[in-house]
């Protein structure tokens, strides 16, 4: 198929960016979206034009490195997948596709479609862990049984890949879904309960410092999340935060 691509180009964080248009031919439905960009880039190199920079790594939807706002939606038109899992059979001959970086104040553009998501890492540094030494002197793994239902809910929250689609989807660029997923995972497990108060306060505080917006419960984050992280996590975090505020 033949496509017209409108792609955001920006030299670096300080430069002014803008859209460039490229025509691309010979794309098949079985190709992935990122393979389509690989092909474009190789054509650009052959024409001595600097290729489009974009983040990607595992190309199987688990590392969270790929991003992209495709036709206005994070990770493109399909639900429950990352950009690297999007296939070209979703588009048709003659389509125009607009590709932009994830937009948020807390995700500054590095170059073209690549953004800096280190704010997410800093939220995790603030409390995304259980303070247990890795010395090997822990008790036997089966000594504390965990209710299957809670273990499963903790697992569901823990499957967040930290891609930032929730922030990109939110009109306020809020990071509540991301932060609440980690808070929930630990709050649901006996191992994580002990530090629950401090954790939620520290992580929320860091999230606010990074310049993410407030949550107004539109639910866009859950809808666009490639891993289906549930809004219930935000509710759980709000409860944790409230009770921590009284304690703290």
């Amino acid at each position: 198929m033949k496509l017209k691509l409108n792609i955001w180009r920006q030299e670096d964080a300080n430069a002014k960016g803008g859209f460039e248009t490229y025509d691309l031919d010979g794309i098949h439905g079985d190709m992935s979206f990122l393979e389509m960009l690989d092909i474009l880039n190789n054509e650009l190199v052959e024409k001595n034009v600097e290729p489009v920079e974009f983040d990607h790594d595992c190309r199987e939807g688990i590392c969270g490195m790929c991003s992209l706002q495709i036709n206005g939606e994070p990770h493109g038109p399909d639900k429950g997948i990352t950009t690297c899992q999007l296939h070209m059979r979703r588009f048709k001959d003659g389509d125009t596709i607009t590709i932009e970086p994830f937009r948020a104040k807390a995700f500054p553009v590095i170059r073209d479609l690549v953004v800096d998501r280190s704010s997410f890492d800093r939220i995790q540094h603030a409390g995304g862990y259980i303070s247990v030494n890795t010395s090997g002197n822990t008790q036997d793994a089966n000594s504390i049984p965990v209710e299957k239902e809670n273990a499963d809910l903790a697992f569901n929250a823990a499957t967040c890949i930290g891609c930032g689609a929730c922030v990109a989807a939110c009109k306020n660029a809020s990071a509540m879904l991301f932060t609440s997923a980690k808070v929930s995972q630990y709050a649901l497990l006996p191992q994580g309960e002990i530090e629950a108060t401090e954790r939620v306060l520290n992580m929320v505080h860091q999230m606010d410092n990074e310049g993410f917006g407030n949550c107004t419960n539109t639910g866009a984050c859950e809808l666009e999340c490639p891993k289906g992280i549930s809004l219930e996590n935000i509710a759980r975090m709000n409860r944790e935060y409230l009770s921590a505020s009284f304690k703290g």
Partner: protein
Amino acid sequence: MSVLDSKVPQGPIADKWTKYKNEIDLVNPANKRNIDVIVVGTGLAGGSAAATLAELGYNVKTFCFQDSPRRAHSIAAQGGINAAKNYQGDGDSNYRLFYDTVKGGDYRSREENVYRLAEVSGNIIDQCVAQGVPFAREYGGLLDNRSFGGVLVSRTFYAKGQTGQQLLLGAYSAMNRQINRGKIQAFNRHEMMELVVVDGKARGIIARDLVTGEIERHSAHAVVIASGGYGNVFYLSTNAMGSNVTAAWRTHKKGAFFANPCYTQIHPTCIPVSGDLQAKLTLMSESLRNDGRIWVPKKKEDSIAIREGKLKPTQIDEENRDYYLERRYPAFGNLVPRDVASRAAKERCDAGFGVNKQGQAVYLDFKSAIHRYGKEKAFTSGHKNPSQEEIIRLGKQVVESKYGNLFDMYQKITDENPYETPMMIYPAVHYTMGGLWVDYDLMTTVPGCYAIGEANFSDHGANRLGASALMQGLADGYFVLPYTIGNYLADDIRTGEISTDSKEFEEAEKSVRNTIDKLINVNGEKPVDYFHRKLGLIMWNKSGMSRNAKGLEEAIHEIAELRDEFYKNVRVTGKAESKNAELEKATRVADFLELAELFAKDALHRNESCGGHFREEYQTEDGEAMRDDENFKYVAAWEFKGKPSEAVMHKEDLNFENIELKTRSYK
């Protein structure tokens, strides 16, 4: 006498590690604060090592090319992690895990390292649970297990099909705790470009900041290479796009021997290649072989009809299906080790029974599992006379709860529903058992330079068993390296900070700048991918699932030619002083082009078939691998001598004192 000293402690195998820990030198906590350690790579091995070293008190600097340590490719491991916990009471023990791993590796690994791995395996599970890793549990609240290939017990712990993700995020959380304490400085979007050796010891690295392009000097008292494997030398593999050999290869060029480069794991259950411009292959977890049955049609005409789209697999009756693994290997059936399963698939496809358009695929079928589970589920929920539809509906639910995410992934890529029609699979490059040679301390032949996880060679011999990579990465990082590195650093307590102003740092930096300038200045006509794809084809066709002397000789020649062409005709656009993905690819492919030649050279010299290394000249009449213990019971560790063709081999003889050397049989 060999120049290689494995430094294995004396005594009975079960006591060695304990005895070692009792006798090594320790560094007191106050002195650890004066010692710096660099860790390159933040996957399971690097991440867990960095966290533990920082927790012990060392100052740690980590480096990864991704934008966060959480992206490392360990995250993509699906099926599980082995541990000899014997929670199922099915007769598992440290010795059995040790035995299975050595046998699975086709008797080409070092017994003592493998025993230690089995010994600490149980501890890994304890550690991860304490960290909040949400492993799968049974209704009673205890941990659940599943089975993997090559073994007869259930010792694999898992978190749905995302075990690697959960374990990596566990290690990442342990790192975050140390970052928050200021004990780890994380340099993300950085690539190690050179190892710096001062007075014969590893004392730092040169790294490139991938955002600004700046070349940086970083010093330390020891350097840990945890940069993963080199499967991307084949271009198409299940590795992440950025996975590369650069850190390991640069270390090799600075004196670290490279062991068994030809031992590559071709994983049997991957989604088949669909087109020429494909960039990446996707694995379907081996755990699927617990319940999926592998088959091709018995009649060649049926395969042809399927390829032409005239027949559907669901239209083929049971008696016309060839469940070739169950036929050839009745004892292990669909759960034979990966190398055996891969070769068997290739054998059927080469014989003309392949089932996709290219004839390069076999079926993985869940029909019987859906029936079996559906019946059981109906019974346990009180339906003693369920209808066929009811059984299938319930069976699909059970299969979905076990493998749902894998089935979804398959459907997204192929646009076919695996609940209704069998999956199509074919082998693909997945893991490299070879890597930097290390002794019992996990130290390379460069003093002070360690290699852990997939980057080293030590534990998996010529073939790795499923769910053992996660185990090894975490064992090395959490429980082994933190002890062994102390034994070395105990001599460094008075050294003080290592200066980056020495001539060694200056020369290393200059060499990195030269490498980059050289690539940018070629200004040829072809993009980097062109060369990488060509290299991949040479490797797959002549150094892949089966190899022969003639093909390997050709490969060596073609790789050298391609390398020449690369330096004459590659075009790297953009500047060195900014974010430049083409330049990143170019530096990596330049190193792959050297490693590939050593790979083929190693495969050519090993005149036997063992594990993932299958030489067509050395096979039995029924196509099984023929090992030659008399002549090849050794590790081939290659020393760099200016170029790959001149590399010199050193042998480490392997002694099997606790396991009898046998022909591996899964019949």
